[in-house]
């Protein structure tokens, strides 16, 4: 299983490397480590969403592991919890 550790700051500059990293690992189950993330921007969100779709197409597991609080909070803010968070983080409870 491939793994990617997300950097702290997922802003505009991080979007292209993130895409490249995902594209490179396509075809196998992937685990995204989101424990260090402190900022998540709209562009990286798009990359993650596109990645999630691609893995789904391939019938492979795309999982996000140990998301940081900031990551969870931002994903919810974006309304993307359904796509990018596992069930335990999807609820609205804090």
């Amino acid at each position, binding site marked *: 299983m491939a793994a990617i550790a997300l950097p702290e700051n997922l802003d505009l500059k991080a979007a292209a490397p993130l895409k490249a990293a995902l594209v490179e690992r396509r075809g196998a189950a992937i685990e995204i480590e989101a424990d260090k993330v402190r900022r998540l921007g709209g562009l990286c969100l798009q990359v993650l969403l596109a990645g999630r779709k691609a893995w789904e197409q391939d019938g492979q597991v795309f999982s996000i592991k140990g998301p940081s609080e900031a990551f969870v909070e931002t994903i919810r*803010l974006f309304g993307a919890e359904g796509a990018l968070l596992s069930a335990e983080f999807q609820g609205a409870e804090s």
Partner: protein
Amino acid sequence: MDELEAIKVTFFQECEELLADLEGGLLAMQEGAGDLETVNAVFRAVHSIKGGAGAFGLEPLVRFAHVFETLLDAVRGGSVPNTVELAAVLLRASDILADHVSAARGLGDVDMAASAAMAAELEQWTDPNAAPAAASAPAPAVPVAEDVPPAVVADDDALEDDDLGFVFVPQTITVEAQAADAELIPSNVWTVSIRPKSDLYRKANETALLLRELNRLGPIKATLDDSALPPLESLDPEAAYVTWSVRVETDEDEAAIREVFEFVDGDCELEISRGEGSVDQAMAALLTVAESAPAVEPAAPAPVEIAPPAPVAEVAVAPPAAEPPKPAAPAAPPAAAPAAQKATPVEVPGPGQSVIRVDPERIDRLIDLVGELVINQAMLAQRVGEYGIAPSSNLAMGLDELEQLTREIQDSVMAIRAQPVKSVFQRMPRLVREVANMTGKQARLVMDGENTEVDKTVIERLSDPITHMLRNAIDHGLESPEERKAAGKNPEGVVRLAALHRSGRIVIEVSDDGKGINRERVFSIAVKKGLITPDLQLSDEEIDNLIFLPGFSTADKISDVSGRGVGMDVVKRSVQALGGRISIASRPGQGSTFTLSLPLTLAVLDGMVVDVAGETLVVPLAAIVESLRPKPEEVRPLGPVGSVLAVRDSFVPLIDVGLTLGYREQSPHPTDGVVLLVEGEDGSRAALVADAIHGQRQVVIKSLEQNYQQVEGVAAATILGDGRVALILDVDATIAMRRREGGAPRPTEPALIAAE
């Protein structure tokens, strides 16, 4: 818990502003302004007070505010018609709300019976059909709320137990209160559709920040649309594909929402609509989401999830589980939550305005320093002048610039302290209502010039005199409705409170259209109280002025309202202490007008520096109309000592300042000196004779009362450029003094007679 106390103080400060907004809005509604904007503003004020109060567990306040708010919400929603009668009820409710706020602050008590009765009345307005519901409750509640308070409270409970659990629970925590709010109150729901362009990200802006900002306005639920997202391989990582539709629940208006997007203007397509978004939109959103990845589905119900009375209630099929997310950041530990919560409702007073609260002492210090700077600059200029430096030299020009800068600094500093008199005026409508109720009179307050600006120090001390004069106007001035009808007047009396700038001073007028001063009675009372001798001949104006004598009270019986015998003399003294004057004009059957004239600021003055009998005096420039050298043929003697000056077809009394102030025994001939034509507050003119004019200068006022004592004819003192102290002439007082001496032998200050 110092921090909490500090927040509480802020809350009460905000409360005062909110109550003022509330009252202003309600008054506008009473005048017939029934537009949604006004109603919304009123609703917001009550809502914010309730929100803050909930945070501090101020239960009675929250409870009352909730009932109040519910009715306002119904008005806003159109289910209760917005009428003038309703506005009157709401105004009375706002008074009780203000009492609750004061009580919560530890100042005064709330009449709980009145509060309960008002709450019941509000409920009655909210839902006239509430009576049957109440009747079904165990307590045999009576439809109309004029019952004894306990029954009313039972009624209250029965009516609300389906939606208001939290209010009755002591120790309410904010988060709960807010969450309950979100469910109970169908607040403003907006749908904001955000379509970021790639430029938005390229300019280092961020959708997440926008959403976060929106979240500050109220709970949001974002629904993401990624249908335009290309497959991973062909995705341009720096282009924008995803769009959002955000449901925002906020009491702010559209402008506030728009403001969130201020910095991304043009880089983001924005659509803001009220409500849950149209059915079409909601369906479209559903469809797009359904087409896209199934994973996004859980978010789908959001667009159609609806608070009960929203316009598209038919589609409210979403399960109750689809609650809006709580506004608090999920990560925030519970302990921190109350503080954060509290701050949110109060920290957003109005869109686009940021206000700094500064300790007034700092400003006072600044003003003092600037005053010193002005004096210093004047001294410097004078020294340089003494060295005979040419006006065109660099030094002189530099000094000129310095003078201008100093002046600008001074103006700006003064502007910081200048405040509209509104802060005082806005307390008055309530006073008028209460006094009118107490005295059984019908009174309407008309206010004018609320935005007239005056120095803060003056404003602070305006409140008492105005309160007193208004009470007097209603209690003594206005007749009872029957008397008014009999006199052919509108049974509702009008009391007018106006502020305006006139000749560099602020003038406050309190007038009524009542019966005017009963001079015979005033005279006989003054005689009875031994204030004047019965054989004294007084002019109408002098009789009117008798009411300013200490210990004078015209009320037949001492009422709660006014007439404790500490009336107008106190007003007069407090006005004089401010360097102001008060005068009366009264016409029988038509009403009276009290005019209060005060200096705009107690700090600086533009004046003409003149020389009188070897003394340097400053005459306020605002009073001077013109200065001239009289020709012998223009001076005409009048009476044994007086003389008048002919100025363009009219005669103006000539006043030798030196003689009036006691600098000399014998006046020189007016043609030897310079004449300053001045205009008094009442518009009367006089010609002041001085020996020479030194020039025009801005002077810093140093209070004579504070440092020495009040001197008649002198308004204050100042320090001149050369370090000498000069007196500032009180023009009106000088004219009055002259009139007294040169005119009829009787003094206008009857107090003197009383002393004899």
